[in-house]
């Protein structure tokens, strides 16, 4: 009888200990998470975000961007010449210089 009581008490102590350990561990993690500063979300520089780079690279990228725009515009203008209409004239009108 004494052995059975001892076993029940031992099981109760063990389970209570395990429960308390899990509880304190969970609270500790939640406290640490609450104290951590919120992550700063920095917007990624755009593909042609050249302002932060050297002057030479900035000029080269600017030149390429302009030439890319002109090449695209030239192709769209050719399509208008082949098939003149209001639609072909205004096709891709929202693609301004710097928009990809």
């Amino acid at each position: 009888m004494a052995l059975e009581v001892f076993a029940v008490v031992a099981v109760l102590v063990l389970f209570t200990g395990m429960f308390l350990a899990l509880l304190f561990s969970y609270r500790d993690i939640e406290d640490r998470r609450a104290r951590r500063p919120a992550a700063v979300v920095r917007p990624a520089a755009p593909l042609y975000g050249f302002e932060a780079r050297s002057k030479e690279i900035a000029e080269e990228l600017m030149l390429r961007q302009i030439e890319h725009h002109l090449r695209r515009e030239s192709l769209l203008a050719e399509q208008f010449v082949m098939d003149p209409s209001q639609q072909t004239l205004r096709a891709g009108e929202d693609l301004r210089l710097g928009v990809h």
Partner: protein
Amino acid sequence: MDRLEAIRQSTLFTGIEPAQCEVFLAIVHEQEAKPGEYLFRLGDPARMLYIIRSGTVHLTMPIAMNGTVKEVVVQEARAGETVAWSALVAPFRFTMSGRAGTDVELIAFSTRELQAAIEAYPDAGVRVVTNLAAVIARRLQVMHAMWTRELQRTINVTFGEGAGA
């Protein structure tokens, strides 16, 4: 491709009989250019007209960026195309610069010799001048469309998108 075939397949001599092409073949000057080498510069007197035999020629305009002026490629011309047509049209001065974008082989005609051939052989000359008008018209139409599109964008930006709807 031999010179005669290169001339016949060009935008300037399209539709001309081989026998008529012989007249122009007699006055060609062959020329080559390395990438980045200028064939002509804006403002210079235009004394040579070119047909591109192979490679790419970049037609450029000076554009100011960050206080420095850069030559920006506004058009590209490829094999068979005619560049430097200012050599046949008054005031005979280049309104763009032209430089080799790749290794380029060119067939060049001097203004004086080409004008003389056109006058001496009017049948072929009329075809050449008509083709030249088509080359110029094509460039004009493309540039006109590009200008109209940029004007529309300026209107949209200045007066709001609704103005251009």
